[in-house]
Structures are given as C-alpha cells and as structure tokens.
C-alpha cells in the first residue's frame, strides 16, 4: 500500500509538526525540500475569497516553485533586513483533519497560531493551513500550501516576513 493511501491522521499531524519545527529553527532549505519542485505556497488576501485564482486576484504571497526557492534564498541573507536579526518564532499546530483523500493526493487542514518576536515587539498570526500532500520517491511532499489568515488585516503585524 502506498504511503499516501495508508496515511493516518496522526502521521499527517507528525508531518506538519516536523514542518513547523524546521521553520521555528530557521532550517529553511530543509523546509523547502519538503515541497515538490513545482509547488505553490499561497497566502490569500484576507479581504477576498481565499480560493480566488492568484492569476487574476491580488494575494499577499503567491509563490510558485521558483519564487519559493528564491524566497528561501532571500531569507538566508543578512540583507533580508526584516528578518535579520532573525525573529524568534513559535508555531502551534492543532485541529488536524483530512479534507480530501483522492488518488495520489490528500488535503490536510490544520489550525495554527504563530508568534513572532523581534526588536522588542511580539506579534501573533493565526488561521488555518491547507496542505496538498503527494508522494514523491517514497516520501510525503507538499504540492501546495495555502495559509488562510483569520486576522481582519495585518494590523498591527504589518508584514509577512516570516513563513507563518
């Protein structure tokens, strides 16, 4: 039986906990490796339909594989001033459930709270993630991650300089 077909809810949760820990520890290249090469990382505008097509609607982040690789490269540089010195962050992942289980693909929803602390200020981000997981060379990989923020606006957070 394939990894994906036998995937249990706790195993999916473990995968999301691993992902969160890589982000907490700023292991961004390892985090990028959890995704497929041609992936999407999407953060819709909180004012609009979170499923509106990014080709015709303004998102906050709508990375394809190339841009996600470049985003990781950027965040590795000291000239990514918004994140250097690096923020201290902590991601809590909860309420994990399957939304869809199709052939070759599962969609997992999770709730999150992310704290970011830097320059004397702590900000909170909250919402839900939707991960589309596929199997690639015998391992789980993220084909698409959609982070749907629940805040009304990025106020007072002001920026999405971390991967929430």
């Amino acid at each position, binding site marked *: 039986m394939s990894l994906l077909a036998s995937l249990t809810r706790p195993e999916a949760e473990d995968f999301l906990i691993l992902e969160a820990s890589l982000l907490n520890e700023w292991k961004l290249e390892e985090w990028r490796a959890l995704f497929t090469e041609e992936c999407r990382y999407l*953060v819709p*505008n*909180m*004012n*609009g339909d979170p499923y*509106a097509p*990014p*080709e*015709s*609607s*303004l*998102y*906050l*982040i*709508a990375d394809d594989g190339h*841009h996600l690789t*470049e*985003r990781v*490269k*950027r965040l590795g*540089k000291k*000239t*990514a*001033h*918004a*994140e250097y010195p690096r923020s201290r962050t902590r991601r809590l992942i909860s309420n994990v459930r399957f939304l869809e289980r199709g052939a070759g693909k599962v969609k997992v929803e999770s709730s999150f709270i992310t704290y970011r602390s830097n*320059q*004397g*200020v702590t900000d909170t981000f909250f919402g839900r993630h939707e991960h589309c997981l596929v199997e690639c060379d015998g391992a789980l990989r993220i084909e698409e991650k959609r982070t749907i923020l629940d805040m*009304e*606006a*990025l*106020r*007072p*957070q*002001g*920026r*999405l*300089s971390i991967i929430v």
Partner: protein
Amino acid sequence: MQHPQAHATFSIEEGNGRFRVARSTYTDPALHAAEMEAIFAKCWLFVGHDSELPKPNDFATRKVAGRPVIFLRDRAGAVRCLLNVCPHRGAQVCRQKKGSAKLFSCLYHGWAFENTGRNINIAEPGTYHPNFNEPGSNAQSNDLVPVPRFESYRGLWFLNFDAQACSLHDYLGNAREYIDIVMDQAVEGMRVVGEMQEYSARANWKLLAENSTDILHVTTLHPTYLDLVKTNSAGTMVRGKVLGKSIDLGNGHAVVEREASYGRPIAQWIPMWGEEAKVEIDGIYARLVKDYGEGRAKRMATSARNLLIFPNLVINDIMSVTLRTFQPAAVDYMEVSVWAVAPGEEVGKPALARRLTNFLEFLGPGGFATPDDIEALESCQRAFAAAREAPWNDLSKGLGREPDATDELPQRVFWLQWRDRLMQRAL
C-alpha cells in the same frame, strides 16, 4: 493659528548645502494633532478608485483621516462619500466592510437612510414634535452627512474636509500629467485587481511619504529584490546608475521618473516571461506607439514613476502599478492600504498574471522588498527616541544642483509643503 513649533523643526543652510528636519516632528503628539488639523482637515485625501464600485448600490467602508466614511455608488449610479455616523446618536450606520445596499439602517435605534444619505425612518416618529421631520423644517439634519467636498480625477476619488478648499483639479496641478501617463496605459480604463491589501507600520506616517519616492535606498535596503530581478531576467536586468530625475510638481507633490531596471507589464519584456509573452508585449508596445507616438510610448513602457500626491497618496508605476495610502492612527503608528491596478483589457490574459507576479515580487507585506521598507521605517521610529540628544534628520542630498533620481528632492518638497501647511501659507 500657526503652530509655534513648525519653525523650529527645520534647519536649512543653503550656503552649506544643509537641509535638516527635527526628529521631534515624528514623535511629538502636539505636532501630530496640529497635522490632523492643518493637513488632514485641509488637503485632498484619497478615498478609493471608481472600479471598486462597479454596480449601483455597491459600497465600501473605510477610514480617512480617522473619520469613518462610506464610499458608495448610489441607486442612480452617482459615486458618493458619506460620513458613517448616525445623525441620531452616532453609531456607524454601516458596519460591513463592503457589499451592496440600497439602505443603511442603524443598529442602535433603527434610523434608516437611502444610499443617497436621505433619512427615511426615525424611531417612533409619532413621539416627536410634529415639525421634527417635516420637509422645510430641520429635516435635512436627519440625513447622513456627506463629506464636505468629494471630487475625482481619472477614476481616483478624493475627499476634502475643508469646504473652502480649491478644486481637486487645481490641487493636483502638475501631478495630473503623471497620473495621465499611468491611466493612459489602459485602453479600457485602469481597474483595481481583487481586493486591497491592508497592513501597518509602527512608524510615523511621514516616514512612508518620504520612503515612497526615495530611490536612494533601493541598493542598500533591497539587494535581495535586485538579486531576484537579476535571476528572473537571466542577468539582463542589472541595476547600474539610475538614469532619471526628481521633479517638484508643486503643492507638495513630487515624482521620480527614471529608466526601469526590471520587466514591466507595459511594456518591457524579460526572458523569464518566455517568447509568447514577448510577442504580446511587442503588440502592446506597438499599440502605445500608434496611440501616443514613439517618444511617449517609450516613456510609458520603459520608464518607472514614483509619484507622491501630498500628503498621503502614492501612485507607483514601477514593476507593477500600485496605489498606496496611509492613515496616521497615532504619532507612531500608521495604517497602510494598497491596491493593484491594471488595464481592463488585461482581465483573463497572461498579462495580468505577469503584473500580479511582478507586484508580489516587490510589493506588499509578503513581498521581497516592502517588509524591509517597513523594518527601516520602524527602525527610524525606534531610534527617534534619541531625538533630544541627536535631533536632526538630514535630507541634503542633491541640494544646489539639478536633482537626479536618487537625490532627496522629493523629500524636501514634501517637508516644505508640510511646513507651509502648518504655518498656513499654502493654498
């Protein structure tokens, strides 16, 4: 009344090429209160774009200079801006962010209004004096209050809280030429794409006014964006000397126009977009040449513009076109709203996707550049705590010569208007 401190906030020595502004201007609550009167209650302030209200009865609520307003298209199709405060006891009559409504009904005691502002219901009308709601008595005072002045230019709607203000047309003055060169890029009109992004900065609003026309910081603050552009353009777009100029447009408005060192949806191709896009962009360019001639077409396509309309509207026609306004919520905190705009004819075409990708590569709270701008502004605000011992910001670059694109002329233009407004010498 002239604010007593407005004078003491500048140190200008032309002979020594010095132009300095006191850091207390970003931190002093008394000056903040003075600005709210002398600038935000007197200047034309951006409210929204025509295309945000495509149909009759569409509305959007927002804050302008702290005041809650309803920006709407009434049942007859006229665009209006009403203060979102019930004439009865003052609750907001509309608490939705946007939608469609023929009527607004107050949640508190049920007073109701047409979307023209006309009152159509009060609570228990039989209990009032017979003349209370009679036409010809004081009935008008039961209507929603419109903003004192509300005018538009090329689809951009502005309000003014000063009934005696000059016209928007005159206020924009020389800036109209630069709004035209952006709006003329569309055959079917410029339209807002999707919804606005809303974010903030823990910084005084003037820092973003300065930042939005500041080209000098690009190489130091945004190298990670320049790296991305280099990768995307397969090394064909590498930032060298910025060729262009800064222009004082009068009334506190300024623009920086220069050669764009990145791909532009209208109409500068880069290799990442592929050969099919090249054909499409060549077609757009040919249309611009046909409509506007070679010179203006080239300017529209291959130059970029950062335009500040005093005090708080930015129209940046850069790697994408964005409208940006920022509301001072406190002396050290601002709320920022930004829109992506695109020619109507791009809807459903790959051109729009390229435009949005270009936007997100640089702009907005998740871009490769804007978060670093916010960090810089917040860093300034934090450091201004030392204003007593280190009192001056320096904006001298390019003083006494023909200013180029990386000189601090736009910032000086902004500040001199700020000073004139606080000393009540401007129109």
